[in-house]
């Protein structure tokens, strides 16, 4: 069992009479790639900011690697942290490399490591250009390089792929995988659920200031007991034959998209249904089992 690196216990945040975060408990293991999802106003930004020590907690406690982020050893704790804010804002008048020098100095990281980081995020060619001339995606990459200064053990990434094109998003997650192989723990938020569902180890769904559920995407799907979809293609008269073999099974419904049939059914009916469909033999040309997406899970928890 890996050690816990992020530990939140009973964390509450009041803004006047409004309770933005209500008694959140959360532990994230070292080396985990952890997703925090929730719509705007769910409290995830507030929780994020409390974990980073940007705003004080009203009640409860947050420890990063066993230390309070605002405690007496905060300098050591913060040197272990990298943070990429949402829509990162850097200094327009500095060049890319000067930006990294500034943050490296503040983190007490040797400036000699900066050039390699620009290379890593694909900005080596723009090192001498002012940030003013950078595109949104380039700024995001520079912000990411900044977060990686000093080989942090813990990375906080707030909507990290905003403004990146698909190629850059792939590069970004490739770097995240490399970091995870090195044992770096990452906490990231995203509103693009499809993007993170295949990539995080575990996630928490936040809604109305509380964590509704925590687990792997698969365990959340199963806990929600959302219907699966079997997508099948075949020859003429497929629909009638399918309806015949599946008779008696608890099926939620069958839709015809024109090219294929979509059979919605509860998870426990999956294996019996597959066994019966196999009896159709040659009539069946293709079959896919579609798990509910993270989107479905997410909206399932919201309602």
């Amino acid at each position: 069992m890996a050690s816990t690196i992020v530990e939140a216990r009973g964390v509450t945040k009041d803004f006047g009479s409004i309770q933005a975060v209500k008694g959140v408990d959360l532990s994230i293991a070292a080396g985990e790639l952890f997703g925090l999802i929730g719509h705007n106003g769910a409290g995830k930004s507030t929780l994020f900011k409390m974990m980073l020590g940007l705003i004080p907690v009203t009640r409860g406690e947050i420890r990063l690697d066993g230390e309070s982020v605002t405690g007496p050893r905060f300098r050591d704790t913060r040197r272990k942290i990298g943070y990429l804010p949402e829509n990162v804002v850097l200094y327009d008048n500095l060049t890319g490399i000067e930006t990294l020098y500034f943050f490296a100095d503040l983190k007490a990281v040797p400036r000699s490591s900066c050039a390699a980081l620009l290379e890593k995020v694909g900005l080596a060619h723009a090192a001498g250009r002012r940030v003013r001339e950078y595109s949104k995606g380039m700024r995001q990459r520079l912000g990411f390089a900044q977060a990686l200064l000093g080989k942090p053990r813990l990375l906080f990434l707030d909507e990290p792929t905003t403004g990146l094109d698909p190629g850059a998003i792939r590069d970004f997650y490739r770097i995240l995988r490399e970091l995870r192989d090195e044992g770096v723990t990452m906490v990231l938020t995203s509103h693009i659920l499809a993007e993170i569902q295949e990539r995080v180890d575990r996630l928490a769904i936040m809604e109305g200031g509380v964590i509704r559920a925590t687990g792997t995407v698969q365990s959340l799907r199963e806990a929600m007991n959302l219907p699966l979809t079997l997508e099948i293609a075949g020859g003429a008269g497929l629909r009638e034959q399918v309806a015949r073999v599946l008779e008696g099974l608890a099926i939620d419904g069958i839709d015809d998209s024109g090219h294929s049939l979509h059979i919605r059914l509860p998870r426990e009916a999956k294996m019996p249904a597959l066994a019966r469909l196999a009896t159709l033999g040659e009539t069946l040309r293709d079959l896919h089992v579609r798990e509910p997406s993270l989107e479905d899970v997410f909206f399932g928890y919201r309602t």
Partner: protein
Amino acid sequence: MFSIDFRQIGIVAGKEFWDRIRNRWVLAVAVVFTVFALVIAYFGAAQQGTVGFHSIDVTIASLVSLVIYLIPLIALILGFDAIVGERERGSLDLLLTLPITRKELILGKYAGLAGALAFSTIAGFGAVGVILSPQLGLNALFHYAGFMASAILLGFAFLSLAVMLSVFAGDRTRASGMAIGTWFFFVLVFDLLILGALVVTAGDYGGAVFPYLLLLNPADVFRVLNVFSLDEVRTLYGLATVFPEALSHPATLGGVMLAWIAGPLMVAIWRFER
């Protein structure tokens, strides 16, 4: 609460200072100072029907009147968005997750901006001092250096006020409004209020307190500091007889100025750490 790491202050100060050098802010302000000072030195006596440099005392007296308007304005403009600007742009959060305390961040910002302001003042007025130096004796140069030092302190005091506003203001627009209001109050309104109070009471009540009230305004402290160090000006203004002895010591006035520098900065730190 936590120990101060001067290295972190130096890094932030260095960035602020070089930003102002690179965007030519320091150069622009220095040129403004040089041009104004030269014009005053050579044409200041034009109303009396003569042009050309006459005496350092009269020149300094005229420069004081100029600087008292100009430097508070420049310092307030320089400092009003120090914190609120970063907050509004969104770069503040990232800074605050780094191994730096809020106190170090404010002190670093202040030190960097103060360095830029002092550099402009020294370069701008210093250039004029060099130009005038063939016509000045050692004593006059000493007075001129004193004027420059007090001008720098005046700038530091208003920069401190600006940084304080920058912590309190909710956004840049409000901060700029507060900065302009501060300038109006200390540079234009304050003396009128004191004068008004003096006239209304006909000097009957607490007349002895009024000179001390001037200490509540860094711009007045600067004026008194310069006026009283110059014999010719002291008689020119006819103030020698009405001013308490205790206030005519440059060291006392310098101490008051330092309090005006440290005070608002301490309030700013206190507020920023909340």
